[in-house]
């Protein structure tokens, strides 16, 4: 196999074992939603004037339940 392939798989393994899985998604990902009502900075996509990213984030969290 090419180096490229093994590099990207070692990167994946490294990330998986780096301790980032702390249960954020399982606990309450909605708390962190960028489209939430908190005063956290909210970015918008100028190409679509505003709320597309909210939908995206919602879809993402739907799909991220693991």
């Amino acid at each position, binding site marked *: 196999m090419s180096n490229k392939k093994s590099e990207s798989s070692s990167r994946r393994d490294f990330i998986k074992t780096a301790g980032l899985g702390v*249960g*954020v998604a399982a606990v309450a990902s909605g708390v962190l939603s960028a489209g939430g009502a908190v005063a956290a900075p*909210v*970015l918008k*996509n100028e190409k679509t004037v505003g709320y597309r990213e909210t939908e995206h984030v919602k879809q993402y969290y739907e799909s991220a339940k*693991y």
Partner: protein
Amino acid sequence: MNSNLNTQTIVGEEEKLRAHFYLLMSRLLGAPVDGDLLSMIRNLKGDDTPIGLEVNALSALAQNISIEAATEEYEALFIGVTQGELIPFKSYYLTGFLNEKPLAELRAHMDELGIEKSDNVAEPDDHIAFLLEMMHGLIVGTFDKPSTISEQNRFFENHIACWAPKFFEDLEAAESAHLFASVGRIGKLFMEVEGEAFLMAA
């Protein structure tokens, strides 16, 4: 309509872990805690890696702090009467002043990526919480389709790696920091993990 599933890049599990972590750090640094966030932090469970252990320490600290105390801590650190103990902006860290060239460089990059700040946010775009939120967005494709690792790396190197590790060190050592000292240690470790992971992809 461009929601054709076939054209969407699939975001791998490990990339989702990174993305969640960026969003968690962004939320912690972007506004004082509220009840939901505090109870989430109390329920975080790390493993026995350096980051995992520090997340457990954060969770333990959160179990013994009230929303009021956590809010006071946030305000002392980042808001203050005139200003907080720390000034969490890229431009400030790199030049000693707000709104200098490092901010202009960020804005040029944001233009290129089609990202702009919401109208209801007063802070300059180079606040640490914005930058971390943008990394989250690049990974999962909030702004467009998910960015490639090398695009993410370019953003990380140019706008985060050049100052955020120092900021997290300052946060860890800040006089007002108790809960946030732990956030600082986690941030520092996370930056190391990200830097190393990007090297593996290079």
